[in-house]
């Protein structure tokens, strides 16, 4: 096998060998040069840019470099680019019909990159999926869900769906909605909830918590208890506030509402007559 390769190599003319060498140098130097350019741009020129911008710049340089190297290699091999571009036009129409979805994704990706509704590291919710954005690419975005699953979402779908960026702003409000039993002293409930919010270490005291009696429900009065928090404190606040409300309500004797049905016995006239006791003597 090796001997065959050596024989084949010796059979090549000097012109072919020179051309091959030039092509190899063009490919190696070109790819190394553009990789280096991408690295320098990321590390030094865009040091203060966001992760997303750096990633876009790296991909733009790498892909452009790849195309330029390809054109240079084709030129070196004597391929006429005008003819190639003409052929590419015809092929392009055929490929275009076959890859409508991909093209749509690429265009959507460009819109997403320019609109910037989210960035790498943001937590987003789209449909039923919530997770941290790992990368934003031309065809799709990749997210990691909180139970550590990898989800790829096509850009076209993102552009046509409602996307919630959970961590865009530095603070958020967490709303707990629950019901208390009818008959509770609502002023007392209001005061106790205010106190719970005040002593919780993760809840911000400004903006003030929202405590609102929202509706008369079937089994009790519905309350919205909204607490502001720094976006990094979601879990400690959620866990602590649920415990705080439950334990403090128990101490204060405030009852949560539970679904209740009142069952009335039949009218006395339809009741069976009481059994007579047997006379004893």
């Amino acid at each position, binding site marked *: 096998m090796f001997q065959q390769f050596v024989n084949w190599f010796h059979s090549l003319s000097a012109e072919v060998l020179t051309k091959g060498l030039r092509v190899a140098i063009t490919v190696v130097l070109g790819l190394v040069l553009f990789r280096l350019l991408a690295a320098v741009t990321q590390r030094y020129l865009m040091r203060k840019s966001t992760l997303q911008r750096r990633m876009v710049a790296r991909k733009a340089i790498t892909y452009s470099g790849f195309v330029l190297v390809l054109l240079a290699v084709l030129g070196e091999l004597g391929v006429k680019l005008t003819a190639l571009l003409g052929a590419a036009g015809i092929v392009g129409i055929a490929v275009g019909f076959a890859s409508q979805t991909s093209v749509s994704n690429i265009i959507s990706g460009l819109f997403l990159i320019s609109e910037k509704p989210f960035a790498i590291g943001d937590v987003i919710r789209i449909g039923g999926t919530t997770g941290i954005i790992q990368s934003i690419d031309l065809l799709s975005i990749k997210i990691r869900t909180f139970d550590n699953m990898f989800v790829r979402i096509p850009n076209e779908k993102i552009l046509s769906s409602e996307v919630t960026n959970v961590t865009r702003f530095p603070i958020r409000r967490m709303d707990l909605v629950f019901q208390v039993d009818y008959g509770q002293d609502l002023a007392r409930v209001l005061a106790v909830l205010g106190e719970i919010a005040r002593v919780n270490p993760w809840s*911000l005291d*400004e903006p003030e918590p929202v405590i609102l009696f929202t509706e008369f429900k079937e089994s009790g009065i519905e309350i919205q208890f909204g607490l502001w928090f720094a976006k990094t404190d979601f879990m400690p606040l959620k866990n602590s506030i649920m415990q705080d409300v439950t334990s403090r309500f128990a101490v204060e004797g405030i009852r949560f509402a539970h679904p209740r049905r009142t069952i009335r016995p039949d009218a006395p006239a339809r009741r069976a007559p009481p059994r007579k006791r047997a006379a004893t003597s």
Partner: protein
Amino acid sequence: MDRTGISVWEAVDIPQRKCLQWRFPSRSIWVERVETEWHVLSLPEAARQHMATRMAVARSMKPRSTEWRHYLHRAGGQMRPSPVLPDRPVVIRPDRELTLLPGQSTIFYLGIPVWFRLSTKGPPPARIFDEPLEGLTRTWFGDPVTGELCWGLATRLHHSLDSVDTAADHAVCPLEIENDSETDLEFQKICIHVENLSVFRGRQRLWTNSLHVVFKGPDQVTQIEIAREPPGLEQNLELAAQARQPAAGWNIRKTFGMLKSFTDF
């Protein structure tokens, strides 16, 4: 005479396998050195103490707790406890509403809780840990998009230094405010960037640099000047802790929060 226990901030030698307790008005801190480890425990005091103390504790008497933290540092010998200011800006919420009329100026004295920092004496000094001595609430200053996370402190704006309690765990910040606008200046919230302030130790009190704030109007940014020297209200003040982030002389920032920005539901 040391009535507040301010001498607890003096440098101290912690030998191997010795435990020291710093007892402050509302929190106690135990520090033990074992080989290259520093074992630290911080617990709140059940009842507020009048003065700060420092004492050696027998190892058998140290509290049993799962909250001991361990820091690895080879340093030994002389250690320097220092009172540093909190790591975020502090938003002061006065306990009563005050209004400074246009063209007027006034001076307030604010008691700001300090944190306990233990560092090697050096040179160069190396920080082992920081520990808050009083629980402050978390609060937000500014609008929900561009504001900043701060510590909240509800306190009285003292006009006279005599009415400010002397305590080893609070630093007094002299705050001079000038209303250079044509509108009333209502004090609902004042944001102090304490990370730019140093702490100085006097005979009975801790002090911070003086602040001079010029209010130009509700739509204008506020000019803040941080005095480079220790406040002149006490002689022979000693630098106890450098500012976390030393600031330039003049600073322009939003300082007053007069209107509630979060009235939305």
